[in-house]
């Protein structure tokens, strides 16, 4: 027996349960080798160490701490039951009929911008990395093949197949202390969420391990003077260099995957912007057999709306939420089938936070989980029901978001919920979103009745205007807009108002709107004369639109 064998025994066996022959061989070697003897005694010490027994009442305390969450869940499920049953009857078969029509208009999430993977990939050593808990990057003293022979027991039951994801060290741009706190909360949640996936095996590689692997890796094409992201932005690669750059990056990523024996590499980059303490950017990039992609989110400690979420709570809890959402997005991209069911399970779980459920609904409807096939998943009755349930949220931001999503679905149940919301929703912005969502459904008797009420009685001028225009036929809508534009007794802002308010919605009649020459001339004058930047901008946008439509005309 030699040092190698001793090390193998220590790593793979219970040294208290060796055969007599093995024990004798070990003893012989330990007499001659002080280092091994030292290691052996240490292991014996650890195994012989007494761990105080668990308190006898700990199980009872644990079960009692779980029971409130169980009963809360049951109560909430029961409460939901009544709503679900009633609404299910209403949704019925119409959901399927409307589904394709409604989903085709789903817009990309504003906060999520697809970016070329190559540009997002930084060299791990180029930027600051977080302090690591892990401790070693030392190569093994034993050949892998030997350890495999000892370790792999065919009789041992194994988990279902897992996809090994190599998580490379996170990188940070402009990380001040506040940003680091935010990023650390986000990153911890990001990794925690990925680790909780039974079909992923997450392997964190430290900066030191990556550094140690460099000898086996082709050099990064981003290394050198252009390796800093800011320098890269200031001096972008020439277009004609991109194919070569991408090929080099791909080669390097493949080498990293092979070196660490992983299926995917995954990087996360956190960006803070000097002078903009409320703006953070989180970019996750993966590379693997099913392709590569980068997912970017603009978020921030006080900008929950920018993250596409409406989470409330402290900045750190929002940071965690965005980390979890990002992890789920990555997971959905890596394993589309599991990702899609993941979004549904989050959406339908009343114990999940409201923001998480909203993000899940948003992500599901955008088909993030099935983006490779470029298809949107079907909006089923049960999903619409959950959306209706979420529209009862106490958080106005959540309600604004859900009303907009419900507006895109427009199943009968959603329309009724929206019509009801137009009368009862206390938040003005949310009510405006509802009115815009209902705009193209003004022929529905229930919707029409609510618009008639809102056109005169709503406290918001915007909502009254939307309702008033919605009740008109298409020709009447155009007349209203042009008459207002030409009424010089009104302020510039008031003259532009029908257009600026209605442009907030994705309204069908506006997509075909053609203004006459006199209206355009009025808009031109407003653009020149108005001292209000917003009004000026809106007028210029209208002129640009009109110019586009003229150029497109035959």
């Amino acid at each position, binding site marked *: 027996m030699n040092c190698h064998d001793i090390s193998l025994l220590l*790593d793979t066996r219970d040294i208290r349960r060796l055969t007599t022959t093995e024990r004798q061989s070990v003893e012989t070697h330990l007499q001659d080798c002080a280092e091994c003897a030292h*290691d052996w005694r240490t292991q014996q010490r650890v195994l012989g160490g007494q761990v105080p027994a*668990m308190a006898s009442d700990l199980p009872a305390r644990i079960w009692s*701490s779980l029971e409130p969450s169980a009963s809360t869940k049951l109560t909430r499920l029961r409460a939901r039951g009544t709503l679900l049953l009633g609404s299910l009857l209403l949704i019925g078969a119409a959901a399927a009929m409307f589904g394709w029509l409604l989903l085709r208009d789903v817009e990309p999430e504003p906060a999520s911008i697809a970016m070329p993977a190559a540009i997002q990939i930084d060299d791990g050593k180029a930027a600051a990395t977080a302090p690591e808990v892990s401790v070693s990057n*030392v190569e093994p003293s034993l050949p892998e093949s030997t350890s495999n022979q000892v370790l792999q027991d065919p009789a041992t039951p194994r988990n279902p197949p897992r996809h090994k994801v190599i998580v490379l060290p996170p990188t940070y741009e402009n990380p001040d202390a506040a940003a680091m706190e935010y990023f650390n909360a986000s990153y*911890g949640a990001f990794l925690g969420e990925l680790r*909780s996936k039974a079909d992923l095996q997450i392997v964190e590689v430290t900066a030191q391990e990556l550094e140690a692997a460099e000898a086996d890796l082709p050099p990064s094409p981003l290394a050198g003077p252009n390796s800093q992201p800011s320098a890269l932005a200031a001096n972008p690669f020439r277009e004609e260099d991109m194919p070569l750059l991408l090929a080099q990056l791909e080669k390097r990523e493949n080498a990293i995957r092979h070196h660490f024996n992983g299926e995917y590499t995954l990087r996360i980059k956190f960006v803070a912007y000097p002078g903009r303490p409320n703006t953070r950017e989180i970019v996750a990039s993966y590379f693997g057999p099913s392709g590569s992609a980068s997912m970017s989110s603009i978020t921030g400690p006080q900008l929950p709306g920018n993250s596409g979420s409406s989470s409330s709570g402290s900045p750190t809890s929002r940071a965690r939420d965005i980390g979890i959402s990002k992890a789920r997005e990555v997971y959905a991209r890596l394993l589309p089938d599991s990702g899609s069911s993941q979004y549904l399970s989050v959406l339908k779980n009343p114990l999940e936070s409201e923001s998480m459920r909203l993000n899940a609904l948003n992500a599901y409807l955008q088909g993030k989980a099935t983006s490779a096939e470029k298809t949107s998943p079907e909006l089923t009755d049960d999903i619409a029901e959950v959306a209706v349930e979420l529209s009862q949220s106490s958080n106005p931001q959540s309600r604004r978001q859900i009303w907009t999503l419900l507006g895109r679905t427009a199943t009968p149940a959603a329309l009724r919920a929206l019509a009801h919301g137009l009368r009862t929703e206390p938040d003005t912005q949310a009510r405006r979103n509802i009115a815009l969502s209902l705009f193209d459904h003004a022929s529905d008797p229930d919707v029409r009745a609510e618009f008639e009420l809102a056109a005169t009685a709503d406290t918001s001028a915007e909502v009254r205007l939307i309702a008033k225009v919605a009740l008109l036929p298409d020709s009447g809508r155009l007349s209203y807009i042009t008459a207002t534009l030409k009424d010089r007794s009104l302020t510039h802002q008031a003259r532009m108002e029908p257009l600026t308010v209605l442009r907030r919605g994705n309204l069908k009649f506006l997509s075909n709107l053609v203004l006459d020459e006199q209206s355009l001339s009025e808009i031109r004058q407003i653009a020149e004369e108005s001292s209000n930047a917003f009004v000026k901008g809106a007028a210029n946008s209208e002129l640009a639109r009109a110019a586009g439509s003229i150029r497109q005309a035959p």
Partner: protein
Amino acid sequence: MAENRMEKFKAQMEPELRGLYRAARRLAGNRLDAEDLVQETCLQAWQKLPAGIDAGHLRNWLHRVLYNRFIDGVRRRKHGPVAPLDGADDPTAEMISPDPGPDDLAELDEDERTLHHAWMQLEPAQRALLALRAEGFDLVEIEEIMAISRVVLRARLHRARRSLALQLKEAADLVLAPARAGRIR
């Protein structure tokens, strides 16, 4: 239905609790934190345990959660005042020492205290590695629980044993009383 689920959950978890607690105690080094770790692990199991998981995989799954919770806790402590997982800010979090309290030390004899002292000087990840080996997990299982490659795992195990040996030597050189006096807050 919920009661049935709870009963099934208890039956599934009870055989695992002692092992979980032992591992948690080794990781955390004191009773209170160990109990918290076990409780958090059970809560996560209650919420997220995959349906139909068998006993062998359950054990690995639970220890993976336990380990992740522990590492997350270490990171939180290390990187500053980050809110606890339930979203509520806990102003007392930074006031709690991870070291064993007097009642923890009272449970140990002198030799054990030396070991304990040396053990707590290890890096958290080293402690986790040795604790999992002491719990009888093989390398394949630890690789899965800690999500590090076997190559790296073996190197880290080796280093962890060396570190512990060194710490044991240093702890033995110390007179235990001053060591304790310096560490108990």
